[in-house]
């Protein structure tokens, strides 16, 4: 009976909400295409717009509520203190992350410095009159060394991006905590 009403009204609020909660719990990114799994074939031709909208709006709500449950952020008034603690906590985490990011930048600088110093050392050897057959192989070894430093540098840049993404996620969570 409930199914007939659902098909008639095109109300997929419950399915959307449950799917949102489930996806958040499984730590999956948002995927509203799951609507096409939930919808009854009749609703492709009957009340499609309502079915699609009700699923999507409630999917978002379910997903958001899933995040709130996960991070203990509730909107009821008797939990204001808890939410405030969460908000402070996010700020603290963002600070820790910023600090981590600064240290990575420092490491990046240090690695470049190491490379430059080694190059200078080889140049000094050459100007001190080292025979070519000693310097040349060392220069080609230096090229391999330098490309390994490039790899580390690229890796640190990727790590920096990941930290940016984490900061962004924490900022979103902090905004949710503040709005409650």
């Amino acid at each position, binding site marked *: 009976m409930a199914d007939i009403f659902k098909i008639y009204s095109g109300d997929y609020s419950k399915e959307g909400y449950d799917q949102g909660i489930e996806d958040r719990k499984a*730590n999956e990114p948002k995927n509203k295409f799951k609507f096409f799994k939930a919808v009854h074939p009749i609703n492709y031709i009957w009340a499609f717009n309502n079915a699609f909208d009700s699923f999507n709006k409630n999917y978002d709500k379910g997903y958001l509520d899933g995040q709130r449950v*996960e991070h203990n952020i509730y909107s009821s008034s008797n939990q204001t203190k808890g939410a405030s603690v969460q908000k402070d906590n996010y700020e*603290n*985490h963002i600070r*820790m*992350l910023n*600090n*981590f990011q600064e*240290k*990575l930048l*420092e*490491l990046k600088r*240090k*690695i470049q410095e*190491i490379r430059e*110093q*080694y190059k200078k*050392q080889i140049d*000094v*050897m050459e100007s*001190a*009159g*080292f*025979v070519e057959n*000693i310097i040349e*192989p*060392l220069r080609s*070894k230096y090229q*391999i*060394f330098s490309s*390994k*430093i490039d*790899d*580390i540098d690229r*890796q*640190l840049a990727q*790590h920096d991006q*990941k*930290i940016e993404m*984490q900061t962004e*996620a*924490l900022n979103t969570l902090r905004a949710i905590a503040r709005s409650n």
Partner: protein
Amino acid sequence: MENNDRLQSLANQLGWCRTTKDYLIELNGKLHSVATNYQNTLDELRNRGYMADLLPQIEEMNREFQEMSSDLVGHIEREHLAYIDKQSVGIRGALEKIMGS
């Protein structure tokens, strides 16, 4: 006179080999300290209670970094230090030869 010049040049080269070897050992020490800094920063995040669901990504980053930096340290030992050592042996041999003649 020619022998003296050659002797001086080889002695200089041997000295520079030693300096470069010291430098490479110091460089490996710096790389090791950079890797330790990364690990310490991660430990600091962990000890200060950084979010449990975000921490694994940073732990993975640390593993990647440790792997790359230890590869570089190994490369310096196998390729650069070994090469300088080999050159030092060659130069010392040439020196001994001149001094013995």
